[in-house]
């Protein structure tokens, strides 16, 4: 163990990297331009380690560890890509496609969707697990935004940005397991939410077309996230 405050040196995919203490593997990898896939993590929001796409191998650990929540240690040796990891990641993305109703071709976020891009990047050319075809609702009661549960991957970015950045905590989750869903207030229509400030941050951080601006047609919904690093910077280091 080295003293706190000292720089940590570690190896990612055989490359020597240095990191500040308390940095996560994902942060160090990003600084070193090493790609680690992730869906739930977004810089500026707290980490939850939920999507499991960023799992990496760490020498000496018999478990795969999420890069987004695992802080670096001196001398750590990390492998971010292997045949095994690649196949797990593909399968996790496939599970998401089977869980909801993701029809890329008619989606407002077609071409700008993190799930779609992830599938392509990980080499998912088809889904070899059967689809679930759940009947899910669309909430268009808000005057400016729409929530389409069919496209939600339950990353909880909307929940976190609303709570941590906007401070409204309009969003939360209800239900368990496969029946989980994001809700506004106490599962009231978004349009009737009394806590929602209509700031739209949730829409912008949503990785898919689950949250979008009204009036957008297929492929027209591009998310603008510039506010997030800006706000984070302005507020200083949040601990």
């Amino acid at each position, binding site marked *: 163990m080295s003293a706190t405050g000292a720089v940590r040196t570690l190896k990612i995919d055989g490359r020597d990297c240095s990191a500040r203490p308390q940095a996560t593997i994902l942060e160090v990898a990003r600084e070193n331009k090493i790609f680690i896939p992730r869906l739930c993590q977004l810089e500026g929001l707290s980490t939850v380690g939920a999507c*499991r796409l960023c799992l990496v191998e760490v020498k000496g650990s018999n478990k795969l560890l999420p890069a987004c929540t695992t802080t670096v240690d001196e001398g750590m040796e990390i492998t971010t890509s292997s045949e095994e990891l690649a196949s797990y990641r593909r399968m996790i993305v496939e599970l998401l496609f089977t869980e909801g109703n993701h029809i890329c071709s008619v989606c407002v976020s077609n071409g700008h969707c993190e799930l779609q891009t992830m599938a392509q990047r990980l080499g998912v050319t088809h889904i070899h697990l059967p689809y679930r075809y759940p009947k899910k609702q669309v909430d268009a009661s808000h005057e400016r935004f729409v929530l389409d549960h069919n496209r939600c991957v339950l990353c909880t970015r909307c929940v976190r940005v609303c709570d941590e950045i906007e401070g409204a905590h309009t969003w939360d989750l209800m239900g368990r*397991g*496969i029946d989980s869903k994001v809700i506004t207030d106490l599962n009231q229509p978004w349009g009737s939410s009394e806590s929602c400030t209509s700031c739209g941050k949730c829409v912008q951080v949503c990785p898919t077309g689950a949250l979008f601006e009204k009036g957008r047609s297929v492929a027209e919904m591009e998310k603008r996230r510039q506010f997030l690093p800006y706000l984070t910077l302005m507020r200083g280091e949040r601990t």
Partner: protein
Amino acid sequence: MTPEELEDIAQRERETQREFPQRVNVCVAAGCLSCQSDAVKEALVKEAASRGLGDQCQVKGVGCMGLCSEGPLVSISTGHLYQHVSARDAGAILDSLQGSLVEQLLCPTDTPFFQRQKKIVLENSGTIDPERIEEYIACQGYHALVKALTEMTPQQVIAEITTSGLRGRGGAGYPTGLKWSTVAKAVGTQKFVICNADEGDPGAFMDRSVLESDPHRVLEGMLIAAYAVGASQGYIYVRAEYPLAIARLKTAIRQAERLGLLGANICGTGFNLHIELRLGAGAFVCGEETALIASIEGRRGTPRPRPPYPAMEGLVGQPTLINNVETYANVPPILRNGGAWYAQIGTEQSKGTKVFALAGRVRNTGLVEVPMGISLREMVFEIGGGIPDGKEFKAVQTGGPSGGCLPRETLDMPVEYESLARAGSIMGSGGMIVMDETSCMVDVAKYFMDFCMTESCGKCIPCRVGTYQMHRILSAITDMSAAAQDLKLLEELCDLVKHTSLCGLGQSAPNPVLSTLKYFLEEYQAHVHEHKCPAGACGVKMLEKVDA
């Protein structure tokens, strides 16, 4: 409270007890209560009063006597045990205190079920009134606490626990002494102790029984732990489905506080511990420690990645010790008798005893405490009394939805953490379900997968969707509609969910499937390839309908 004062209470209580030449103990734990043991007790009290035996014969409610399948159970001071007692037997039972025994109610206690047990955690269960602190004190209760507070340093307490070799009884088997010393060394503004009483495995009722039968033992264990790690606030997270355990815990906390054994300045030593109850709202995942902590904090009960472990950053970010009910219940006797005494019991790697809830297709179902290392065969065929109705043994399921099904070949394996894990199951919290030839192992796997699927919190993708997909395949297999490639897909999903899920629930959810695939593959194949269920359990209902 000084050691002398405590001894005074114990002495007085023992004398009071001795004033009664005759005693009748009625089990009033949940098992017997569910077959009206409260009416039995009431009838006995009434009958004794009407005979004017009030000051000679004591009728009291006690905790679990173990053989739940034969309840309501009543024991009398001659040392005999009655089973299947009903209220109208009250007169005959009182008669038998000085006359001849009620033969038709007699429950033999020279059987392996009673003789093979070794009671440490359950030493007072079935003998003391769980609602009176004096009775617990009379059985050396709180002596370990006073000893620790007055004679030992926290380090010495931890050393004793480490010597004992005690491992977490919640299922994972992490060395308790190591956990305690981690929390003791951790730095924080306040430390917490938490008792995990969110027992949720299907068929498991060890913790409920301990809480209902001997709640003070758990409080004492928590007090000693809090002293050892330097905690001043404790929580017992108990599931709301255990109303009796909750009521008895509340009584116990009140009583301990009144005697100055709990609260501020305990025994005048300046040590403080306040214990509060928190009720679980019915989510199995809240038995996972980080989810449990979130729930106590008033948040949605979902796990978070570890590290940081609760020992470093737990409740409200402070060092927190979480142990299971049975782990705490082991602590007082260890301090009383010494860690070395405890370490003699059990096996090399698994010390002490373990309480099991024996259920399913065995003659004797109920609660048993046995030394670690006992074989599954002894559990099933001696203590359990074998399989009823002339059926063949097929498998024993340990560890609930996180465990596996162990076949006949493993019967001679010792019951300890490592051997069970090697065989593809886990020790778990102590549920043990015996299955005979009429159980279809695919159906069993499906049952547990259904449990995991509905209890998945939904936070991480592999568990949320993976358990759904596995359940879908298992349903297809039991419906005889699965294709050959579904078996391969099932294995693929098991591998994924096991290795990528966020918490223990997901990581262990494939175990019932993996173990049945390992030991009973031919049953899967029969469903898939021949559309037949060898046990005759799947699709039977449909056939009956057609016939009728």
